[in-house]
């Protein structure tokens, strides 16, 4: 199986990336995406976590990029972090409607269900997750756990049965965090997120410390050899995102990742 990799960053609208030289000085946030799309082939939409996506805004955004450009969209917090027991199903329907322009154009690579560290493996949480997956059926789902309790063959088996991707994560080595794994639960898509390994800043509550990290070539090459190459043999498409956005370290690392993947003979779009 020849796996094609798409590499990008988690979010693209950071004014401090201007100071770091990634965007030219004076770039307004509305002009960032077209510039970003000249360099990368995929991005992860962050704002959909804060705010329910709206079809017309998503459509406007889609028109700013070439048709081959892909989007992964985070699932809104009202479905993952601040769940309203009585109307989350309506929220799920609204979400599906919001991202529909990307589905129609074939540019939705994945919907990222990012779960908070407090979302541990309890029967209540398992029930919500199963319900959520059923409610979002048909969308290309990927789940990022942030608690170790979900490391279980049974969980992976259930995800595989539903063709839901388990997100591979790289983060600081902290006791409760979900570890870096190379498990594949959906052969259509692998999804990897690099958060940076800033163990000190991780729980600071400040993004500026939590995501302040630069990956070395050795660290990235290690990931490719130990996990990405074996995974690539079993999947059709891979998306890789860098979330260490502070001082534009993410786009720099993403560019290096593309180079390293190509050096290993892998296909990167």
């Amino acid at each position: 199986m020849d796996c094609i990799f798409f590499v990008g960053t988690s979010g693209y609208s950071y004014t401090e990336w201007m100071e770091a030289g990634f965007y030219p000085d004076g770039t307004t946030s509305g002009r960032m995406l077209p510039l970003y799309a000249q360099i990368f082939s995929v991005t992860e939409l962050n704002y959909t976590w804060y705010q329910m996506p709206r079809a017309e805004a998503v459509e406007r955004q889609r028109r700013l990029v070439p048709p081959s450009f892909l989007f992964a969209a985070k699932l809104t917090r009202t479905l993952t972090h601040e769940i309203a027991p009585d109307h989350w199903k309506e929220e799920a329907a609204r979400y599906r409607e919001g991202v529909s322009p990307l589905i129609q154009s074939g540019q939705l690579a994945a919907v990222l269900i990012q779960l908070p560290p407090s979302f541990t493996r309890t029967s209540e949480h398992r029930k919500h997750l199963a319900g959520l997956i059923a409610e979002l059926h048909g969308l290309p789902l990927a789940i990022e756990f942030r608690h170790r309790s979900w490391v279980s063959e049974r969980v992976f088996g259930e995800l595989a049965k539903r063709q839901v991707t388990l997100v591979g994560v790289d983060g600081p080595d902290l006791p409760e965090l979900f570890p870096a794994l190379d498990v594949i639960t959906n052969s259509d898509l692998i999804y990897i997120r690099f958060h940076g390994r800033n163990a000190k800043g991780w729980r600071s509550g400040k993004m500026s410390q939590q995501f302040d990290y630069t990956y070395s070539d050795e660290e990235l090459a290690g990931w490719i050899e130990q996990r990405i190459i074996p995974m690539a043999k079993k999947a059709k498409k891979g998306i890789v995102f860098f979330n260490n956005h502070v001082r534009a370290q993410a786009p720099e690392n993403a560019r290096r990742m593309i180079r390293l993947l190509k050096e290993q003979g892998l296909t990167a779009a």
Partner: protein
Amino acid sequence: MRERFIIHLNVADFPVAVERAVDVRLRGNPVIIAPEGALRAVVYDMSEEAYQSGVRKGMPLRRALRRCPKAVVLPPHPARYEQAMVDFLKHALPYSPLVEVADCQGHLFIDATGIGRLFGPPPDLAWRIRKNVRAQMGFDPIWSVAPNKLVAKAATRIVKPVGEYIVGSGEEEDFLKPLPVHLVPGIESDDLKFFYDFNLTLAGEVARLSMDQLSVLFGSRSQHLHDAVRGIDTSPVLPFPHGKPVITVDYSFGDDTNDVRKVEAVLFTLVEQTGMKLRRKGMTAGRLRVFIDYSDGGQASRQTVMDVPTSNDFNLFASAKFILNKAWKRRIRIRCLRLAADRLAYPAPLQQTLFGKTERNRKDNLISAIDAVRNRFGRSALQVGRVLAA
């Protein structure tokens, strides 16, 4: 101009939200806030549920209760709301030097331009402030992020009573286009009348009019309206404490009254207090405002610009009395009287007359003498007859 990121936090029905934080039993039930014990009290504020039943601000309480019989009626607690506002503000102050308390209670603007490196992207900051407010104060502000105050305010209006909205730079006009024109901040009821006469109900429809067309109808207001419906607003977020200095004094009557002599006596006392404060600062006031709170919760106010800025009690009182008469149009008893003096300035040097004394000199000298006596023997040492007579 540099691209700006303005966060707007808006607590819908702020007084109700505060009361509900104090008493959780009120949650989910319709709540009306109106003064107690007044026969013809009017609604001061109400919860979303009461609003949905047809209750509106300023509506007589009896009618409001007919429309929403299950509503819990609470008396207003202005001090409580003020304290809650101070606490609310504390959640925003650490993040930006530019935090503005808007005119309405429960509204804050935060200029989050250029603070990304310290506190993360503006939507994340807005969400975190809201999370902290919700956890610590027990109410849930709506938040928005937009390139200016006008669009940020409009954005929170469309997601009322809970929610969030992000408008990116360059999207302002597209965002406003489909909205009913009354939701655009800065458009007043007189403007709306004109718009409706011409069957213009959406902001986008008004935005199709050129400046020339607008100026036929609105004259000097046309530029403002032209910009507002396009989401153009360059007004800055004013740092807290912001605004121009103002001296405010008030008096609540023990027994509500509509006795002219009593009210005027109180007004004179308020003027004396204001004058004293002005003279201590060595400043004069350029504008006076009088606010009346009636027994039934109704309010009225009038203002006047002074011909010559002054700190002299007699001159201030002449103006204050003039606007009190203009504001006091109802026969309902008055509960509270408030006087505000602003446009404070240092007095301009005056050319003195060479011969004799003017009326002005005499009044100023009298005030100086009264001040001297009071400073030495206390405020009650000298009283003006008008105050004693009442």
